[in-house]
């Protein structure tokens, strides 16, 4: 499975001239950008600006129309690549959690470990328990997703992704579907991850998180990157007019 050879010196994510159309609708227009290893990059922008599409092109849940995407030096957009092996190394967390409702929490965390990584059941369970501990839900391993709050479900989803030992993590608005009082728990888990040096790309509306945890902030609008840089600089002193008008609405 792992005939993928990682280039140790390449950036975690490297996107070159990425274009994406849905039919005639151009959603991404020549995106160039990269995420360095061990950094947290936050992506903000108005609804429909293409943030999710960009994120989903990185593990090819969405098929780029043209351009190249590299993850740790491996070309994702190469048609011959073992996509499943590559995806197993990229954790993804969704706005709607997408836990498997027919499986218990523990099975949610072990199913891909045993079926994709071919880990022994014992080992998978051990890894799962360690990650449940990490997200503060060790006692819920026998629960089913429907019996958990949104915040708990999202933390389980993070633990599920972590159980594959990913090299990097993609988050698509992980707290947008949560009641406000539950947002903090999830952000807390993400902060811990960041401080452990996990490479993360986070589409978010949480400006506080971006400022505090992010190493880089990217502002997208209309399928292009309008402005990017140090989060404190972009948020505090935006250079582009579109950034200024967006921030004046959300801050």
């Amino acid at each position: 499975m792992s005939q993928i050879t990682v280039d140790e010196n390449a950036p975690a994510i490297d996107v070159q001239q990425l274009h994406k159309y849905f039919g005639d609708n151009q959603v991404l227009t020549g995106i160039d950008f990269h995420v360095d290893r061990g950094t947290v990059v936050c992506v903000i922008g108005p609804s429909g600006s293409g943030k999710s599409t960009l994120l989903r092109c990185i593990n090819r849940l969405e098929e780029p129309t043209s351009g190249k995407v590299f993850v740790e030096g491996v070309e994702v957009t190469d048609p011959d690549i073992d996509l499943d092996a590559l995806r197993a190394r990229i954790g993804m967390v969704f706005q709607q959690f997408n836990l498997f409702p027919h499986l218990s929490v523990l099975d949610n965390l072990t199913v891909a470990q045993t079926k994709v990584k071919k880990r022994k059941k014992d080992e998978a369970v051990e890894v799962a328990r360690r990650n449940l501990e990490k997200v503060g839900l060790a006692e819920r391993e026998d629960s089913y997703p429907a019996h958990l709050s949104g915040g708990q479900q999202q933390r389980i989803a993070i633990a599920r992704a972590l159980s594959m030992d990913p090299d990097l993590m993609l988050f698509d608005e992980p707290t947008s579907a949560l009641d406000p009082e539950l947002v903090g728990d999830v952000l807390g888990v993400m902060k811990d991850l960041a401080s452990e040096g996990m490479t993360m790309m986070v589409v978010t509306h949480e400006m506080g998180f971006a400022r505090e945890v992010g190493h880089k902030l990217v502002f997208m609008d209309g399928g292009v990157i309008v402005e990017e840089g140090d989060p404190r600089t972009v948020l505090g002193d935006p250079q582009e007019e579109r950034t200024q008008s967006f921030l004046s609405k959300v801050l």
Partner: protein
Amino acid sequence: MAMSPRKRAQVSRGIQYAVLGVVVVAIALAADWGTLQQTFLNGEILPELFPDLFTVALKNTIYYTAGAFVFGLVLGLVLALMRLSSVGPYRWIATTFIEFFRGVPALIVFIGFYYGLPVAFPGRALPGGTFGTVTVALGLVGAAYMAETIRAGIQAVPKGQVEAARSLGMSSTRAMVTIVIPQAFRIILPPLTNELILLTKDSSLVYLIGLSFSDYELTKFGREGLNQYTNLTPLFAAALCYLLITVPLSVVVRRMEARADRAR
């Protein structure tokens, strides 16, 4: 005289009950109960039906139905996956099959199958004798209906489930087998059980084909009894046996639907 809507509803309900009561009483008075009982539940004939009614007829009905259901379910799943396939010819084959077997009366399928196969493949027979033939013939019809049910179930599983599975590195087949299909079957358990009820009744078509006594199912058993005794009691007993199977299944379906409603 002005009536409140509530009052008016009560009056109209009362009138409905009264009419219903009159009809029931009229039927009860007009019917010839003595002869009815002689014809439908004859005390002399009834005991003679046992134990064969259960040990042969009911047993065979359950066997045929179960065989056809399992065969139909497996074939239906394959057809559903073919209908959802990105490969054109798979879709066309499945669609043709489904339209054909849903559009033709089961009775004709049965006759065509039973008499057509030996002509098409002389000297060969399906394994399993009557059971094998019935399983396949009835299963083909059941599969066409179940395929559509299963397809709807698969499509009802949110797209995010596949995306989550794929993002964890599962292949599309793996995601289908471990994530989508188990959820689809939970969704379609009630309609599938209804399908089982329909199949139970359709198994009566077996009476069309020549059988030895040990292969009799309920309807055949009842009709033979009808000829033998020139009395409807055997057929009526067979009908009660069908209810013995179908009513509990209906109750199960209603329970499942109620539970699904509550979960929503």
